């Protein structure tokens, strides 16, 4: 177990910077998820911590020791790869024991650790099988087991669930969470899936184009997204972002609707973020946003209405009750929850106010 400290970590390929200085501390036993769209540099960052990718500038510390120039094996880390990367000619047992064998642990100790991990991951019946005789989910568990038996200072996972089907992914997500609670292992987890990110993380690093847009707890990221990018990335369906003109005490929406919103942090052009789940149906006579629905997706418990603000081309997504009888062409009036308003700067997309 150990703390990981990233200090202005940068990466460039041939003068082209892809990671633009990331600084954060991961506490002992913390579960941190790096999340972002593909190509945002999240895997590169993880691989720099693992030692598989050279660090162009800045330092990475694991357990208080700068590891920039250390080989992966000297960093006391274990890693789970997206494609599992199991050794195809070795049995499950040999796969899990390989790292321990190289570390010259006593045979009895190796066996004990493999047995323990196999029990935890329900892999005992498969210990003598080759990876090719296993299902995707079993392979994934072997990859987890191979990392866990090492009892590393830090556990690194690179999109470990992305090759599983949806149902298995949910199961494994729960299992990973439980395993973390049990082992208290410092964990760095990369994913592009916001559900995995929200459910697993103690803390999130939301990345975009090589920059950490926000580093905070999942709830904080949801409630106070630091930028328009984060706001659009976390939450499903994504937050509505509407260009507005703010004046004293009220804002003007596209289509000329005026809303009394005393919370606007400044006047002039702004971008207003409204989550679909924070728009409620208007009481009769209340000033509201009129929306013309184009389509409604029914998911059972909920339904999502996709429409446009009346009198404009501005799209707006609403969350409706699952039993709602609304459909294409209907007109609804909604009111934003004043406690959940987000304002962003139209130039740089940063959050304004609190």
């Amino acid at each position: 177990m150990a703390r990981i400290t990233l200090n202005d970590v940068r990466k460039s390929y041939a003068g082209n910077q892809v990671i633009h200085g990331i600084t954060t501390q991961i506490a002992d036993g913390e579960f941190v998820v790096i999340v972002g769209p593909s190509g945002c540099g999240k895997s590169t960052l993880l691989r720099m911590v693992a030692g598989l990718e050279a660090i162009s500038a800045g330092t990475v510390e694991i357990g208080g020791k700068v590891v920039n120039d250390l080989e992966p094996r000297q960093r006391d880390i274990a890693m789970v790869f997206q494609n599992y990367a199991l050794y195809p000619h070795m049995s499950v047992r040999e796969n899990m024991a390989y790292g321990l064998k190289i570390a010259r642990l006593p045979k009895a100790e190796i066996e004990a650790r493999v047995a323990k991990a196999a029990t935890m991951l329900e892999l005992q019946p498969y210990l003598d099988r080759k990876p090719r005789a296993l299902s995707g989910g079993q392979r994934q568990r072997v990859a987890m087991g191979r990392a866990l038996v090492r009892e590393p200072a830090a556990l690194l996972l690179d999109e470990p669930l992305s090759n599983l089907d949806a149902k298995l992914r949910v199961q494994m997500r729960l299992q990973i969470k439980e395993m973390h609670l049990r082992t208290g292992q410092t964990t760095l987890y990369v994913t592009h899936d916001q559900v995995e990110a929200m459910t697993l993380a103690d803390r999130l690093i939301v990345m975009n184009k090589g920059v950490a847009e926000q580093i905070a707890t999942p709830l904080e990221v949801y409630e106070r997204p630091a930028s328009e990018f984060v706001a659009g990335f976390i939450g499903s369906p994504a937050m509505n972002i509407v260009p507005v003109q703010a004046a004293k005490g009220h804002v003007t929406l596209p289509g000329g609707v005026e809303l009394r919103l005393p919370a606007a942090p400044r006047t002039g052009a702004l971008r207003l973020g409204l989550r679909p789940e924070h728009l409620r149906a208007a009481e009769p006579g209340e000033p509201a946003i009129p929306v013309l629905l184009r389509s409604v997706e029914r998911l059972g418990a909920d339904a999502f209405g996709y429409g446009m603000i009346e009198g404009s081309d501005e799209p707006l997504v609403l969350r409706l009750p699952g039993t709602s009888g609304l459909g294409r062409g209907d007109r609804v009036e909604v009111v934003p929850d004043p406690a959940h308003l987000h304002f962003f700067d139209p130039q740089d997309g940063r959050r304004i106010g609190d």
Partner: protein
Amino acid sequence: MAEPSPLAARGAGRLVAHFWMILGVIVVAFPVYYVFVASTHSVQTILRPPLPLLPGPEAAANYGQAFEGGVRRIGGVSLWRLLANTTVVALGIALGKIAISMASAYAIVFFRFPLRMACFWLIFITLMLPVEVRIQPTYKVMVDLGLIDTYPGLILPLIASATATLLFRQFFMTIPDELLEAARVDGAGPWRFFKDILWPLSLTNVAAIFVIQFIYGWTQYLWPLLVTNSNEMNTIVIALKKMISFADADTPWNLVMVTSVLAILPPILVVVLMQRWFVKGLVETEK
């Protein structure tokens, strides 16, 4: 049994297919069979046409005679010695090629060093320089090193192999990067990665290359002819050549045929014994 292939011919098409196949087998196999038949008849029978199509009664006598000095009388060296020489040379070439080409392919694929691609292309262009092309300088080098009439002299010039290096390179490039990275994280250095992961995964390829190169080594003619003066160092192919170019005596054809059979046999055995591995290595990549 395997399912019938969707291309399986029916009726007349099937007959035609079989006709050509059997014809092909006869064209390829009949001369070999005839050599075997000839090795079981006496010289007189062989020289009096037509040669019988079935094996004769002299098999034991011919083979016994060949091993007990018959070949030594005409070629100056025992059949045992010839077989031993050829085995050493063929094994040396096959194993040497595998060792060198695997090592160089490993370096080229998995390591980043200055002039890596230059090295690769240097190896590549040796494809255009087989022994026959560079025979004079190679001979000179062997003379200077005092390797005439030695096993190293027979083996070394034939070992450097661009073909095998390229084959191994192609195979190594299909190994997923993540496998190498997983091994690095597990603490394996370059040597352990090679020994524990790359070598076991390469076994079928090694087998295929071994078969090809063993036969290549076994059937070498020009280079052994040049680099050996003493009969004691002859390979079996050279000895055969010497046996039939005797002008002053009647050629003992029965013994020549026995020697031919014994020259053919080991490559066949290698192919038959390693056939499954061989085919696997050529068609399948197990990952």
